[in-house]
């Protein structure tokens, strides 16, 4: 079953496909320059404390991203795709 949640709320180790990015063109371009765009496969590595940055794996690299930005990235997760 498909479920759309934001990156900040994903669980550690969960994998999904980016479905939407909420924000203006500048914001989208900024994310895109690091390979974060709709269609990219991402795996969440960790959340640092409550409202701290989120670390994720995307297109072969590790990226740390602020909490508020992470909330604007929506992910399609499939319950079957969960891996730890």
């Amino acid at each position: 079953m498909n479920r759309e949640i934001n990156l900040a709320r994903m669980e550690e180790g969960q994998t999904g496909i980016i479905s939407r990015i909420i924000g203006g063109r500048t914001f989208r371009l900024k994310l895109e320059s690091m390979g974060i765009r709709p269609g990219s496969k991402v795996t969440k590595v960790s959340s640092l404390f409550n409202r701290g940055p989120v670390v994720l794996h995307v297109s072969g690299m590790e990226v740390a991203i602020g909490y508020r930005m992470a909330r604007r990235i929506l992910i399609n997760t499939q319950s079957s795709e969960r891996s730890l």
Partner: protein
Amino acid sequence: MKVLLIGNPNVGKSVLFTRLTGIQVIASNYPGTTVTFKKGFFKLHGEKAEIIDVPGTYSLTPTSEAEEVAVNMLDEGDIFVCVIDATRLERSLPLTLQLLRRKKPMIVVLNIWDETRHKGIHIDVEKLSELLGVPVVTTVAITGEGIRSLVEMLPKAPVPYHEALTESQQWQEIGEIINQVQTVIHRHHTFIEKLQDFSIKPSGGMLVALVVLSISFFVIRFLGEGLIGLLFEPLFEKGYKPLLITFSRYLGGEGMLHEILIGNLINGEIDFIQSFGLISTGIFVPIGMVLPYVLSFYFILGILEDSGYLPRLATLLDLFMHQIGLHGYAIIPTILGIGCNVPGILATRILESRRERFIACTLISIGVPCASLHAMIFGLVGERGVKYVLIVYTVLILVWICLGLIMNLATKGFTPELFIEIPPYRVPVFTVVIKKLWMRIKSFLKEAVPIVLLGVLFVNLLYSLGIFQFLAKLFAPVVNGLMGLPDEAVIALVVGFLRKDVAVGMLAPFNLTNQQLVIACVVLAMFFPCIATFVVMLKELGWKDMLKASAIMLAASVTVGTLINLLWP
């Protein structure tokens, strides 16, 4: 002929630059080590060619100041060398495809080639070259592998022809290229990868940070003290001092020249700290006291930088750093500032907003003592007991935090959020670490020693002209009345503008109480940056913000000095 080295941050452009030109530049394993471009020359078929190390950028639509520098330089180049981290091919392709459409002769370099094998990545180089329409060279810049074929290939670089792409076409093309040239063999996670994940999780990260920072601290102290005890002290006491004594006798033990070169004899003997002559104290302070700590600090810093740990520390501290108006990445300039404030201030260019840069620069110059200052504090305050060294550092850390909290509330604007690439861990290469250490030591000797000598000369001059005595009287109400220091301490504060190590050294003959010594060290650390730091800060911030920063420094140091004086048990 201008050759541009262009690529994502942290793909090894600076190492490649050093390989091609022989010019040593600082390179590390984190994005943003190069904040301005570096130029150099190398021989290309007997002709002199210019080569430029461009700051790393992720795309040609810049999002930060450092990236803008990179993009603006493209038109100047005659040949593009697009440097790619071979272990992260997919990551580099957007920029590569954009560069291919600039209609300039181009070569693609797959750097860090040796690591693809360990990572189970296989790249079909010929196919990649065919798809991109330009030659592809594989290199290991750190060992020099492949550099020769790169140089041979340069004059033959073709101008690629590709039709313009829309954004979605670009991503589609990247997907196709990856499908055709790259195969990744699935394998189990290595120990390093497990450690990578562990050290970026909250609990594991805290544990790793604690271990890394305490080991670093103890090794720096151990090496620094070891160097002093085993090498520098015997060298000065047994080797240099007898020479000075002979020279002092030859000069007759007094007189103008003796005063300037050797200084005052303390109980008939030369005292390396108190005599205050050019070739006694002027040589001993930078070489005998400060250099051992500069050596040990930069050795450890080099290892930390090349391991790739620092961006992880930055991510871990991000939430806390936001409280003081910065984001996590500001910890990197701050750590550089512990060695010397100058590179620390320059490194604040990796921060995006002006507000952040102002806060970071001010905090570094006030609350982060440089290696020279550390060495002097360990040396002079350490003699009175570890307790007092701890007080000095606790106060400075509290000042750094409190000022940050205040500036966060008082400075206009907002702090952008953290958004950084975290490099993989790499085992630092010993020879590379030593080379970097040597570069930093050279620049310390070249830049610090002359100013120390100038400082000592300046002190002797102003003493004999009576200017210090005048200043001491003038500032007595603040220095004596508020902070409880002897009037002459104002002299040390003035000299602190030239060099902080000389200034702390000047405190030695005043016979200060423990309380006074602690206050004097804290105030000296906070009071005003040394001249070298002042000059770069002025350049980076401009007059207006520099004035603001200076006002904050003065107010903060007098307040804190007074507070310690009042609260001392």
